[in-house]
């Protein structure tokens, strides 16, 4: 009898580990970290886009000074967009993500107006620096789209995990896990770059 009692804690440990493992004790934090990492990617790509803006504005300015309202609009939209950051802890707060998305959407719209200006300035259109910046902007918009898709995929994965049995038990009991928010772009992206056609 006493022998059995001595054995049971030793047995209990692996059994408990297995049982808890089934409750998402490991998989929930892993999925959460993945969401945070993918969000960092999203913000990085938006930052990359913001970093292109001053150069782009200067280049356009050199050819199209009279478009000052468009140029000022881009600079202001950039300042606003870079002032809003969403930390990993804010990912459960839909209003924070909406603010971020709205500010970035305004920058997208302003950039779209800036790029459409080129039609009136043939010299700008064929300027090597402008062409390079334009392709970088287009590439960055692509990366934003991909980063956003990956982030939303990670969120879906996390939300499904914490809502489905048996992980939902661990999610409630140990983590008090709340669903995270997906991130949709508001407004069109600045892909007014002429599409390469043949």
């Amino acid at each position: 009898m006493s022998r059995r009692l001595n054995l049971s804690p030793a047995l209990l440990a692996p059994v408990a580990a297995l049982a808890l493992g089934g409750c998402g004790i490991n998989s929930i934090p892993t999925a959460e970290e993945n969401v945070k990492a993918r969000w960092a990617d999203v913000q990085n790509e938006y930052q990359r886009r913001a970093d292109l803006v001053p150069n782009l504005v200067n280049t356009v300015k050199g050819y199209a000074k009279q478009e000052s309202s468009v140029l000022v609009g881009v600079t202001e939209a950039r300042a606003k967009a870079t002032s809003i950051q969403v930390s990993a802890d804010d990912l459960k707060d839909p209003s924070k993500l909406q603010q971020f998305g709205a500010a970035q959407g305004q920058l997208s719209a302003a950039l779209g107006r800036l790029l459409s200006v080129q039609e009136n300035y043939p010299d700008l259109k064929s300027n090597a620096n402008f062409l390079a910046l334009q392709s970088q902007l287009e590439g960055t918009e692509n990366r934003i789209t991909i980063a956003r898709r990956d982030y939303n995929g990670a969120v879906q994965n996390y939300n499904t995990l914490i809502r489905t049995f048996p992980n939902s038990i661990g999610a409630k009991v140990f983590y008090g896990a709340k669903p995270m928010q997906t991130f949709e772009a508001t407004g069109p992206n600045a892909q007014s770059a002429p599409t390469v056609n043949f």
Partner: protein
Amino acid sequence: MSAQVRQGWRLWQQGLLALLLALLFPTAASAQTFPKFTNFVVDQANIIPAEAERRLDNKLADLQRRTRHELAIVTVSSLQGYEINDYANRLGRTWGVGRRHYDDGVLMVVAPNEHRVRIEVGYGLEATLTDPRCAEIIRDKILPRFKLQDLPGGITAGADAIIARLNSAAPLEKPRTS
């Protein structure tokens, strides 16, 4: 009566089997269909003559042997309604072009029916094949030939420019994690 019951049971079994199969392949119905990754050159749209295709494939195999970087070229008969950027990224991921931890794959997608072309570059090679450089290759090497209806010539010229760039690039140092 008992025959009816048995038949009902069989129908129920069949239904259950179908359900199980559906659960086993949840994405099968919604997934995009991509061409199969059989060679470095996959000419689904059938626009490259066999001889040119063989030469191109040899070049790409040689590039992969020397530099370990993978360049794959695909012509598709339809983008299935997707933007070419989106399509190229998804296809590149599905095929797993490039070494996993280096993410050093390059994929050229040509969609002759939609008149679109795209060079998709893995993160590991972005410093070598930057956005402006890829845009330049498309603008200066590929499109002039495409506009003269010389699709194989444009594809080969684009591939040569990419290969030249990869040849002169410094080797990648450490694998990217994740």
